[in-house]
């Protein structure tokens, strides 16, 4: 038997060796041979006729743009096709290229997104990405994105290059190379909070609406009692991190570092930004209180009993038609839900309906502005035509005609202008099939210079909140910080795992035993997973960068 086994092992290793020679020669190929072509175009604007006069565009190419979102079907797809045809006619004329959209559907989007990037087979050229919610930096480090040299940007995306200030380009660099083109000229707020029915809050005795977590408890209790058919918040089991983070920022001056792990467990405080700590290990009392309150919510019946097994939720759409009483998401979503748009039928069926927003951090006035790489465009390292991809992007972002086609669709079909120059929906508009804005998902280069204000939005409420934010906010302080996690990745993986498992139980009040016990257990598990080691390492890297 021994002989046989040795033979088997030997054969195996031989075959392995053979196969090893065969494979491997994939990837790499198209790196940065791009800059050579064309003359050195002096930035932009002056030469308005054709900035790419010297660029060879004789070959017609298809540029694929990858975005998260569900692929439209049926009539919606027809509307999109018609719009894309128009857009592609312009793109063909200007840069002899056309645009295709590659969708990463929302189910397991992050895994599929990363997997598509990892295949590097040239299926995608432009990649919509984000440093906080789409792993932009890990992918850049893994070699999925092409380094964008300054000459390259100047030559192929001159308008974008000129419009993004130098300090913002700095925030898009890793190891001295630019990887991302930031969406830095678009006002939006993506700090999370609870969107709720202001009219019902008033009925519950909260005259000015909800302004604290305790108010929320009262609100939910009232809703459950007064409207027994309504699930106050039909959450799926994935909101736990946002809830915990929201609680922390509502009860401390914690400012989190984004893009490290799903939980954003580390950060500094507003007064002391560059001393790293994790409130999840230090703010024990606060967490116990959180665990207690969530248990109370669970007992009230804020969410369904089996919420932890619920991975798909239609809560937002249910809110639009009045089937639920709250939605936990960010301000940008609130600006939609607060407005009497065609989709939000609660305002048609119930005259009194009003929507309020309780943002996390309201109690402690702890609001951090969005990092400019919350939306960004990158070029895939596997792209066959990185130059043309940049040219197309430059047009999409800066050419009014292209921008509006991509972002709003065809004028007269999907949108129109009213007498004030604001955006309205035309006669016979169907938001299910003609909302091109909701199909192209261009969140990686929106441009306030070209935005047409949406007349259906409730600007009064929105402007008021934005003004409030502007007074409170601090700028995101860690834009420059891209952590090197090579040595601590295994700790971070385990910590995320611990955090996810425990926080799910805590944030949905589904734990056994007392709040004190579960929090103690959670903190113990974090310690064992090495949270202190990670904190130390991050501090070391902080000191290197900021001191």
């Amino acid at each position, binding site marked *: *038997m021994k002989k046989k086994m040795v033979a088997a092992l030997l054969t195996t290793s031989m075959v*392995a060796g053979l196969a090893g020679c065969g494979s*491997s020669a994939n*990837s790499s190929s198209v790196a940065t041979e791009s800059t050579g072509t064309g003359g050195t175009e002096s930035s932009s604007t002056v030469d308005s006729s054709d900035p790419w006069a010297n660029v060879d565009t004789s070959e017609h190419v298809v540029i694929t743009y990858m975005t998260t979102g569900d692929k439209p079907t049926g009539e919606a797809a027809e509307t999109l096709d018609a719009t894309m045809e128009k857009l592609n006619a312009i793109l063909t004329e200007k840069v002899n290229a056309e645009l295709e959209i590659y969708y990463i559907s929302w189910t397991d989007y*992050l895994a599929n997104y990363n997997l598509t990037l990892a295949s590097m087979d040239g299926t995608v050229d432009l990649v919509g990405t984000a440093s906080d919610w789409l792993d932009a930096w890990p992918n850049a480090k*893994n070699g999925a994105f092409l380094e964008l040299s300054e000459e390259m940007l100047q030559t192929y995306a001159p308008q974008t290059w000129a419009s993004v200030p130098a300090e913002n380009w700095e925030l898009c660099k890793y190891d001295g190379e630019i990887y991302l083109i930031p969406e830095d000229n678009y006002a939006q707020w993506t700090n999370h909070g609870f969107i709720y029915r202001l009219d019902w809050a008033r009925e519950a005795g909260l005259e000015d609406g909800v302004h604290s977590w305790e108010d929320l408890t009262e609100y939910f209790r009232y809703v459950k009692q007064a409207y027994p058919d309504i699930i106050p918040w039909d959450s799926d089991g994935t909101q736990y991190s946002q809830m915990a983070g929201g609680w922390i920022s509502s009860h401390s001056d914690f400012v989190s570092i984004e893009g490290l792990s799903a939980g954003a467990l580390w950060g500094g405080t507003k007064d002391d930004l560059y001393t790293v700590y994790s409130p999840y290990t230090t703010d024990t009392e606060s967490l116990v209180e959180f665990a207690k309150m969530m248990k109370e919510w669970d007992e009230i019946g804020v969410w369904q*009993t089996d919420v932890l*097994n619920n991975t798909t939720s239609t809560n937002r759409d249910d809110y639009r038609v009045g089937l639920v009483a709250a939605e936990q998401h960010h301000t940008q979503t609130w600006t939609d839900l607060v407005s009497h748009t065609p989709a939000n039928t609660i305002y048609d069926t119930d005259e009194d309906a009003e929507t309020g927003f309780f943002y996390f951090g309201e109690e402690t006035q702890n609001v951090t502005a969005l990092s400019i790489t919350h939306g960004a465009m990158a070029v895939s390292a596997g792209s066959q035509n990185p130059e043309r991809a940049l040219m197309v992007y430059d047009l999409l972002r800066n050419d009014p005609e292209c921008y509006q086609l991509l972002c709003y669709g065809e004028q007269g079909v999907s949108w129109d202008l009213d007498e004030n120059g604001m955006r309205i929906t035309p006669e016979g508009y169907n938001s299910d099939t003609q909302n091109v804005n909701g199909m192209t998902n261009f969140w990686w280069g929106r441009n306030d210079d070209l935005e047409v204000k949406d007349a259906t939005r409730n600007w009064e409420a929105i402007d008021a909140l934005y003004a409030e934010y502007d007074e409170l906010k601090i700028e995101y302080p860690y834009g420059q910080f891209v952590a090197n996690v*090579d040595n601590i990745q295994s700790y971070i*993986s385990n910590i995320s795992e611990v955090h996810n498992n425990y926080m799910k139980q805590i944030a949905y009040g589904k734990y056994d035993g007392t709040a004190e016990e579960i929090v103690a257990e959670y903190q113990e598990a974090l310690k064992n997973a090495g949270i202190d080691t990670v904190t130390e390492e991050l501090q070391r890297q902080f000191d290197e960068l900021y001191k």
Partner: protein
Amino acid sequence: MEQVVVKKTKNNQSFLQKVYRSRVLLLMCAPAILFFFMFSYMPLPGIWVAFVKYNYRDGIFGSKFVGLSNFEFLINSGKLFELTKNTILYNLTFIILGNLLAVFIAILLNEIRNKKFKKVSQTVMFLPYFISQVLVGILVFNMLNYDTGFVNGILSSMGMELWEPYSDPKVWPPIIVLVYLWQNTGYNSVVYFAAIMGIDAEIIEASKVDGANCFQKIRHIIIPSLKPTIVILLLFALGGIVKGNFGLFYNIIGTNSLLFPTTDIIETYVYRATMADFNFSTASAVGLYQSVIGFIIVVTVNYIVKKIEPDYSLF
């Protein structure tokens, strides 16, 4: 007689001649050989990825070598023991109960005299095997969930207290084993049924003549004849004892961390931890760990079997 023939051919024929002689047999084997070569042997060098810090652009063999640091993650988690234990215990239950039940069903099927009933019941038992695990997960959820589940629907209509399985980790091992048995027994029993069909009819005739009753026939003829089949299937199954049934566990339990103490197996843990960070290297490290353990177990068990009953061992 056969042995003599083999010896003769060995002496007189060259390798090529032998190949030509058995060309039909070889041709029949070809698909299987090709399959294993392509999907089991070709990817083997990829094991290297478990020892590097994988970078998309440099590829598996161009990335930086980091030694065993990818294995640290599993050890650091402190869960290695619990996960391995869960995985092995579940698989052991699946193998033992699954095979016993399959043998039992096969014997029952064999005793059924009504041909139509036999065919129908065989098909019905066979069917669940072809249902996707995703659907099985949904079925289970719709049976058991608290608010709208089938079981609670019945309980509430009878005025009884509702059952909360999705908040109770203790009830899941039996549920998962049940679901597994429901899905796989029909399929597994086919092999045993075929083995029973292959038993020499003369022996059974003879036993009848000797006045053996039905149970004696089963006890002294059928079960002993099934023994080699059982042992070989058992050995095959043991090789995968550290490989958990990801589809089954992931679809039924999902991300409900409350149930993990009794239902988390290596696969589901690794899926969660590495899909979140998208780390191929650590995932492969775990795969390698499982393969090594599986290899050791197969070799050991085979050794033991060989000591006891040399004819039944695999190699």
